[in-house]
């Protein structure tokens, strides 16, 4: 699964710290599966399916 690194609160690009993602704007935090763990964001990150094809990682945007 791939995650869109865009905070669901006001759209700021997230920063990665270890296995957590944090928004530099208002401090929302997300787990590495996209679930929101700290507000003010109230919904999880957008996710995309991935496939590994011949050692290539393909992210489906559909």
């Amino acid at each position: 699964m791939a995650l869109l690194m865009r905070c669901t609160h006001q759209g700021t690009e997230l920063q990665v710290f270890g296995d957590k993602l944090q928004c530099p704007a208002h401090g929302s935090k997300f787990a590495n599966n996209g679930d929101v763990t700290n507000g003010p964001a109230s919904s999880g990150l957008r996710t995309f399916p991935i496939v590994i094809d011949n050692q290539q990682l393909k992210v489906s945007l559909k």
Partner: protein
Amino acid sequence: MSLKQLQFLIFILLSNGIVLAQIDSALLKKVQQDTAIGMNMDAVYNRPFIDVGKFPVSLGGYMEVNWQHLGTDGISEGHQFQARRLTLFVASSISKKIKFLSEIEFEEGGKEIAIEFASIDVELLPLLNLRGGIIMNPIGAFNQNHDGPKWEFTDRPISATQMLPATLSNAGFGLYGKYYSKDWMFGYETYLSSGFDSSIISNPENKTFLPASKENAERFEEGNTLFSAKIGLLNNSYGEIGVSYMGGVYNTFEEDGIVLDKKRRLDVFAVDFNTTLPKLNTFITGEWAWVKIDVPATFTQQFGNKQQGGFIDIVQPVLKRKILDWDKAVVNLSCRLEYVDWNVGKFNETNGNIGEDLWSIMPAISFRPTQQTVIRLNYRYSNQKDILSNPPSKTAGFILGISSYF
């Protein structure tokens, strides 16, 4: 090209079109042109931000509006309707690992407009980010984490606005970083910025008053240097604790090479914490700060050389369920306890305690239809003593407010 080949080509083009039509266009990124190439006359129209669908640019903010009816010693201001502030937030990702973040605040209907925060952040490593711009000094927890909709109380803490200057920002540079490991997080921030001026002991309040420095717009161009730093440690089960410091020379000790005074320092130390109690889900947050100022001996004792104060918020969710059309609505019962002493110490002559202190208790009930929006009703009861510790003036009343991100 044969007819069959042409048909195949059209099929490919059409099928590509169908695939593209299924992809959210916001996800498709246009390759940006190098703006350095081109004619000067085109520069105004060829800026990186004139780009529809640029991702991610975020635009948002929050606003706060209140009604209050307070009385001090039986005298009331009557009904007050207050549009406290409207804050606009704009951020963008300039390129990989380079971000711009900003917050512009309009207070009192636009009477006060301030760039509270505007920085360019360059991520070198997760533990090493460079930040430059108008930065928010990391003293205590409230200064940086001050957004109205995050709190259950209409007013900002007194210690964070009337002792420490809330939303204190200065021009400067710094480094910050965070490190996560399982349930633990360690973070640090450190900045060198412009700082305070002599107005902290020369102001209309006639007391040592750090927020007076915010009136000085020169701090974005020149002035004394302020060092500020914070270390934070978080555990997912136990909560977060932060220790912060800011300090520097505040007076004009030299002008055009002529020494006017000795260098006089201001030092502020703060501790903050927050935790959520297991099972009860009670959220507790607070901070306490100590201020030490080198006040000239020629000043009277009404200008304190030591101050201290802080607050603690206790927030208990009592209802978490679908209310009307909101699936995850929450009702909280809360209470804020505050104390500030603007002049710690005793009079030299009498050895009696110097007054100038305040305590306040503020119970609250708040309704959050979503995490972004809060409707809150507070009752404030505060007790403020003058410098001679005469019988205190008592303030009490109700405040109803709504605050929301947008």
